[in-house]
């Protein structure tokens, strides 16, 4: 690993030929936005209002234009970028989106829109020395010091920062940077344990199997009631990736675009015939919890919930997915 006294040199080095995107203060909220300089970066903020997923998976994305039967590709130029100061939970979220949008094998679906942005972005992660009360990443196989999935990862230490380059892309990116090599990184282990001890721990081991047994349980009728079906949780979540495709046309000309969607909307599964496979809130909440803690682990091998806690904070009725998962673990029919 290498050591740096301050991060500005790394920032300046990376921003030479890439647009840097990091947490920026807007009013009294923080969003991932393009930064003009290192000083615009809000380094003390852990998570920000929304996850950085909209850099790879925009909120509203034009897929193509059409004129009668002619298709015109969207000419939006995707520039090389740096996603700066992203926390391990959000990095894990990006990783899960990549697994979803870049499926391997012959029949695997590869989303060209997502992948172009993903391939052109360098992910610079930042360890969390002071987790906040809503975090629970350690309960879903995460850690405030997990560098996996980042191209470059920053660990704040006494008197500076330790920098790791988990990927070849990251290694290549820091070439030319004036650095000090260090071999003794043993203090990181103690730092990691200290940070992890500050995070609330839930016992979710075996939840994917427990939930499978609860498909017909009346647990779902019991927990879903306060949900107003607003979709905010899916929008702030780093790993939620559902989208709705819409056409907008005038005469024979128009465009096809996609927007974020949420499985908690009443109309999410509404079919043209009028039939809705998930007409009740309890069925929709069952779907959400099982997708995060059972279906996704089954197919992709990891919990889809990353433990960032944004949903509980953003939810107008303060529904906490961790508490619901906990209740599911404790549920006796």
């Amino acid at each position, binding site marked *: 690993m290498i050591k740096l006294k301050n991060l500005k040199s790394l920032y300046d080095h990376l921003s030479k030929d890439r647009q840097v995107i990091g947490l920026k203060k807007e*009013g*009294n*909220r*923080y969003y991932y936005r393009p930064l003009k300089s290192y000083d615009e970066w*809000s380094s*003390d*903020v*852990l998570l920000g*209002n*929304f996850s950085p997923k909209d850099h790879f998976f925009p*909120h*509203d994305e034009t897929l193509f234009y059409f004129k009668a039967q002619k298709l015109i590709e969207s000419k939006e130029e995707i520039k090389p970028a740096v996603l700066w100061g992203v926390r391990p939970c959000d990095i894990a979220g990006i990783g899960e989106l990549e697994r979803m949008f870049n499926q391997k094998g012959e029949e695997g679906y590869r989303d060209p829109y997502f992948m172009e942005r993903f391939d052109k972005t360098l992910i610079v992660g930042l360890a969390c020395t002071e987790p*906040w*009360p*809503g975090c629970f990443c350690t309960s879903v196989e995460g850690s405030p010091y997990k560098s996996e999935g980042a191209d470059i990862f920053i660990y704040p230490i006494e008197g500076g920062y330790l920098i790791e380059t988990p990927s070849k892309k990251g290694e290549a990116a820091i070439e030319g940077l004036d650095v000090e090599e260090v071999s003794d990184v043993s203090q990181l282990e103690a730092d990691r344990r200290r940070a992890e001890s500050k995070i609330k721990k839930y016992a979710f081991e075996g939840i994917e199997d427990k939930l499978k047994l609860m498909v017909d349980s009346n647990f779902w009728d019991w927990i879903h*009631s*306060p949900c*107003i*079906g*607003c*979709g*905010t949780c899916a*929008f*702030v979540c780093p790993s939620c990736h559902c989208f*709705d495709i*819409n056409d*907008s046309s005038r005469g024979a000309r128009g465009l096809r*675009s996609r*927007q*974020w969607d*949420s499985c908690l*909307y009443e*109309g999410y599964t509404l079919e043209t015939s009028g039939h809705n496979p998930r007409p009740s*809130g309890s069925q929709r909440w069952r779907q959400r919890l099982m997708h995060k803690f059972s279906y996704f682990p089954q197919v992709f091998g990891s919990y889809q919930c990353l433990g960032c*806690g944004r949903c*509980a*904070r*953003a*939810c*107008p*009725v*303060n529904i*906490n997915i961790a*508490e619901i998962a906990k209740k599911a673990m404790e549920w006796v029919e």
Partner: protein
Amino acid sequence: MSSMTDAIREEARKILSDGKVDFVIGYAEGDTPIQAKPVFISRVEDVDKLVWPSFGLVNLATYLSRYRTSKDRIGIVAKGCDSRSIVALLKENQIDRDRLFIIGVNCPGMLSRQVAREKAGEIIAAENKGETWSFTTVEGNKEVSCFELMPSNCAACRHHAPVISDVVVGDPITEPDGDGYDSVREFEKKSAPERYQYLMSEMSACIRCYACRQACPTCNCDECFVDITQPRWVDKGLESTDLAIWQLIRVYHQAGRCVDCGACEEACPMGVKLLWLTRKMNFIVKERFGFEAGVDPEALPPLATYEKDDSQEFIL
């Protein structure tokens, strides 16, 4: 407010143990700082989960439309504004009166999480200090007075007492002077381009999550106009005029039904100032048609009726 909490718990305990209701909808302590948490209590043992919250800008009447055709008997904690929403829903036959037991609350006003965010920033922890709240934020400790944390709708409220109830808790509140619409009059002094600029810049933050629509009790159409494809009234996506029209029509559809409860603005993840529009809609309905949502259970909804001498100075 602990006596309010006790009073609410007592009433809920009574109606649950007497078997008057199947469950009670009320507020509980939030898991994260300064958040309201609606809760559905069906067992007497759980009654102590109910609290009278400080940050409680959630209109519980929004849950009632769900029970339109069911047989559940429902107890509900209702502030002044919430009770007016219940009247509006009763008027529209969305729920039966005889299935409801309304625990009315003389509400002195709520505090707003949105306002707290605006004044203090990213809040990690919060502590109630009586007249003030102390917030731990990323930028250090910040103390804000309760007065400063009050949202614009509670400051403008002239209906603190429930208009309909089976029991009432809390001390009666003297309504302040004035009609509460000074902010509307102030805004109308600006020029047209300034006002249009304000509309477009506020709505540009909208991300079409529909939290406002879902939080509102009277936004309860089976199929909302934005989800209709034949015809496509408003496109999906984030084009600026679509965003403005989405909210203008949503507010217009609340004419005579909106009670200025503040749930929409409080639910918005982007902090869009929706009350600025809803308060004008209520002002129009009051000035033009002499109507205020939920105040008179017998009055017909304003757009479902007319007077032969309605004002028409704008018609050639």
